[in-house]
């Protein structure tokens, strides 16, 4: 790897989350709770990418994510790729997968839904994964990708 490419320093053990849309970086950090852990974390944003206009990358030292945990970011970073690092080597690559149920994170588009009027944690069943469509557990209305907002 040439020095020019290495904009964020390498880690010995841990996870690199790559191909995050640059404008979603801080949401990804928040959804994964990385703002509340003691692990060493480095991140870079507004990096050039062939797949995304501007991408962000997060390197979390000493942490490996469970699938359930990492899949939470699928709604906002569907192209994200994980590199699992051991002793500076990539030992596994993973993609994220939209889960069947989403708790919190997304907002119901229906202004008359209880979740938009009282402090209720949202819950959705994913009824379509290609063009994201989420059915609200409460008001039963479907929020499509174009109306999707992340809390």
């Amino acid at each position, binding site marked *: 790897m040439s020095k020019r490419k290495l904009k964020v320093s390498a880690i010995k053990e841990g996870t690199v989350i790559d191909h995050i849309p640059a404008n979603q970086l801080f949401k990804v950090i928040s959804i994964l709770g990385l703002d509340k852990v003691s692990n060493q974390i480095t991140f870079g944003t507004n990096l050039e990418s062939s797949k995304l206009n501007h991408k962000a990358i997060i390197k979390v030292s000493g942490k490996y994510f469970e699938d359930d945990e990492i899949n939470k970011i699928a709604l906002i970073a569907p192209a994200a790729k994980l590199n699992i690092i051991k002793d500076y080597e990539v030992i596994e690559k993973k993609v994220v997968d939209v889960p069947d149920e989403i708790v919190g994170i997304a907002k*119901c588009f229906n202004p008359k839904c*209880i979740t938009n009027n009282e402090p209720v944690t949202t819950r959705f069943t994913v009824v379509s994964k290609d063009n994201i469509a989420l059915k609200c557990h*409460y*008001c039963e209305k479907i929020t499509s990708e174009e109306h999707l907002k992340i809390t």
Partner: protein
Amino acid sequence: MKGKSLVSISDFSKEEILEIVKLAAEFEENPNQLLLDGKVVASLFFEPSTRTRLSFETAINRLGGNIIGFTDSASSSTTKGETLKDTIKMVSNYSDLIVMRHPLEGSARYAAEQSDVPVINAGDGANQHPTQTLLDLYSIYKTQGTLENLNIFLVGDLKYGRTVHSLLMAMSLFNPIFNFIAPDELRIPDEYKLFLDSKSIRYFEHSEFTDIISKADILYMTRVQRERFSDPIEYEKVKNVYVLRNSMLDNTKDNLRILHPLPRVNEIHTDVDDNPKAYYFQQAENGVYTRMAIMASILGLK
């Protein structure tokens, strides 16, 4: 069904629906059974709905139960800013069962999750009103002797009418044929057609309200509301098209019955009222027996 909340009609299986329908018939035959003696039922109406509330309160009274609650949110602590969760937590300490009407969609599901006692949804905004659906089913069962293989005509506002959508979902358990009659602006939404396709249930769409009703076993009329139209001219064009008149019933089947969730405006002409096929007032009465059946069943008293 004991201890189970009733939030959405899809919470009940076919067997459970039939159990309620048969129990409603039993209560109709013998309405004064003091099964709720010593029980307290909370009747929480966060928005007024006189028809539904009186029907529930009649059912509770006939069962010998006691009622606590309020009839609109102005007389509840909601006006002081109390959350729904807090109201439900408090009331579920006092009562054996909660009947709730609320303007927000999904409020009933949330209340059922927060409550220690079962919650019956008496309407949550435009979302669900399952006791209406069950009384519709009882009315169909009572007049046709069965729920199976019926030809159901739904007329009027099929886009926004929640009673229509819930009835469609519930009747789909009983192999019906559906005929939808609605103006273009108020056609049945695609999601329901996809649902029917997935269950291989036959349906036909019409925009003209004509003698096709001669095949109907059930004619379910709904109100076409002015506020549903973006273009007032469209409303003026259709408002008198989807009106049922007595003369239209001449060539219909003997077993045909006309249902309407009420209140009606002009979509059923008053000259239909005396026709023996008109059933909407008995339908409302059936609501009391159906609600008795639902409450007795949920409290495990039957």
